[in-house]
């Protein structure tokens, strides 16, 4: 058991740090029905990092990689924000999907011209939770405290835009700009977490707690607390399974999320809704 804590302690800690903010953002994503927006933005960030690797020919990602990742994320945020008024004609999900497909394809093209490309693509998909260090945990926690504070300050406006888009558009002429701000903040959170957890796991942290809690609850605040509970249970379960059966950690947690969701769905089906 002590061994498990020594080797998986940082992985568990980073999962909890990631869960803290992703559970909240996932509720937004679900309300907006842009389920794959994280995949899309993460893929754009990855494309940025790959472009930087090609331009600088550096082996270790330096500040250029982060700057490029950020730049590409901002471009993505702009695309999603400024196409929102078209959502009555074209589903936003379609645009999210197209951005994901094109960004992935262009990444392959760029990688074909750059060294160590293949490893890069694999890392983005599954992440490397096991290699997380305590330094990573503290840095991420610090970044998320700042980003979380900004979210908190702007919560009222973002909630209005996510849950009542039509009203928000009538009330303010600058909805696109606020929306742009939301996606940039979202993109910043995602680009950090994807490095450790990988796209699949980040997707799970966003969507599964938001979905499970919506089965049982309506109010945002209770849903957030319940969502954190779900995320903690799934992370713990996944990491435990990874230790006991020696599975890759990230994939084990994703599977645990799936199991928890299945269990919740069964309970929902058997217990009649009281409200």
């Amino acid at each position: 058991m002590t061994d498990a804590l020594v080797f998986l302690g940082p992985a568990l800690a980073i999962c909890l740090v990631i869960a803290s903010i992703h559970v909240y953002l996932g509720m937004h994503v679900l309300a907006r029905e842009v389920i794959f927006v994280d995949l899309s933005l993460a893929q754009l960030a990855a494309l940025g990092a790959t472009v930087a690797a090609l331009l600088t020919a550096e082996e270790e990602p330096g500040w250029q990689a982060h700057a490029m990742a950020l730049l590409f994320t901002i471009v993505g945020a702009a695309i999603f924000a400024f196409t929102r008024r078209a959502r009555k004609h074209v589903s936003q999900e379609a645009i999210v999907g197209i951005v994901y497909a094109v960004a992935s394809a262009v990444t392959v093209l760029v990688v074909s011209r750059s060294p160590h490309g293949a490893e890069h693509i694999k890392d983005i998909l599954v992440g490397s939770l096991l290699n997380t260090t305590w330094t990573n945990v503290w840095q991420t926690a610090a970044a998320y405290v700042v980003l979380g504070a900004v979210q908190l300050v702007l919560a009222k406006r973002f909630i209005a835009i996510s849950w009542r888009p039509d009203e928000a558009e009538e009330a303010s002429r600058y909805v696109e700009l606020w929306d742009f701000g939301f996606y940039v903040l979202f993109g910043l959170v995602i680009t950090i977490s994807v490095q450790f957890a990988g796209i699949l796991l980040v997707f799970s942290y966003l969507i599964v707690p938001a979905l499970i809690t919506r089965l049982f609850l309506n109010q945002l605040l209770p849903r957030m607390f319940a969502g954190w509970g779900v995320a903690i249970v799934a992370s713990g379960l996944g990491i435990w399974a990874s230790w006991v059966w020696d599975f890759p950690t990230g994939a084990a947690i994703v599977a645990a999320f799936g199991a928890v969701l299945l269990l919740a769905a069964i309970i929902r089906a058997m217990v009649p809704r009281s409200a």
Partner: protein
Amino acid sequence: MKRLCIALLACVAWLLAPSLASAELRVVTTTTDLGYFARTIGGDKVHVDTICQGSQDPHFVQARPSYMVTLSRADLLVSIGLELEVGWLPSLIQGARNPAINPGKPGYFEASSAISVIDIPKGGTDRSRGDIHPFGNPHFWLDPINAKLAAHAIADRMASLDPANAKLFHKNQQDFEARLDKKLKEWTDRMAPFRNTKIVSYHATFNYFHHRFGLDSIGYLEDRPGIPPSPAHLVDLIRQMKEKNVRVIFHESFYDHATSDMVGSRAGAKVLILPTSVGGANGTDTYEKLIDSLVNQFIAAAKQAKK
């Protein structure tokens, strides 16, 4: 308070005890070939664990908790080196928190340091040409002479870490060398009629094997690892293969062989799907059987092509 401290220390000692109790040398190798060498040398005096399986691509290994636990208890880590494991081993070493096996320590050994490296990129390293290994081709173990050199160096390192068993290690290593010498003569004789046969391969895994037995490799199917080859490259390769009458494609068993099959059928060449490490296919549980298998399959294909 004092009592509590003592109790805690006792607990820690009890938890550490199992790892300290066993006196035998604990060796961890990255690949099964190195694992086979270490087992052959160490006999029952060492405990050998291998991270990468024989049928797995040693360039990519997905980290698992047990790898770190194994490494945390190791006295000696033997890797191939030349950046073969660069994508995954450094972070595993970091995660294992075992100072004894950090690079530069006696408990860390790169077997490639014992051999003479081929395919070193000329004129500096142009990384834009893809995943080329800047320090030369790391897949040295498929040349039996390199296997002897590596086994010798591993025996030396094991002997220095466990002097009590040094004699045994060296004796076992010399026996292995004698066995390989005999086999090498057999392999060389059997391969002699096929010297300068032109072949292509998927990745550069078999270059040392080709080099040892005088096969003439004229190209690779892959442009860059993990990236589908461009159509232009394949068309050009098929043209060259027809021109130079290349009838054999060496294909690593862990890569998808759809591309090799397509090229093989267009160019009229046989695709050999080959194990690259000990345990990489049925009946390759020793290094000698692994090379046997490569030699047998190549000769069968080359004979068929001559008809």
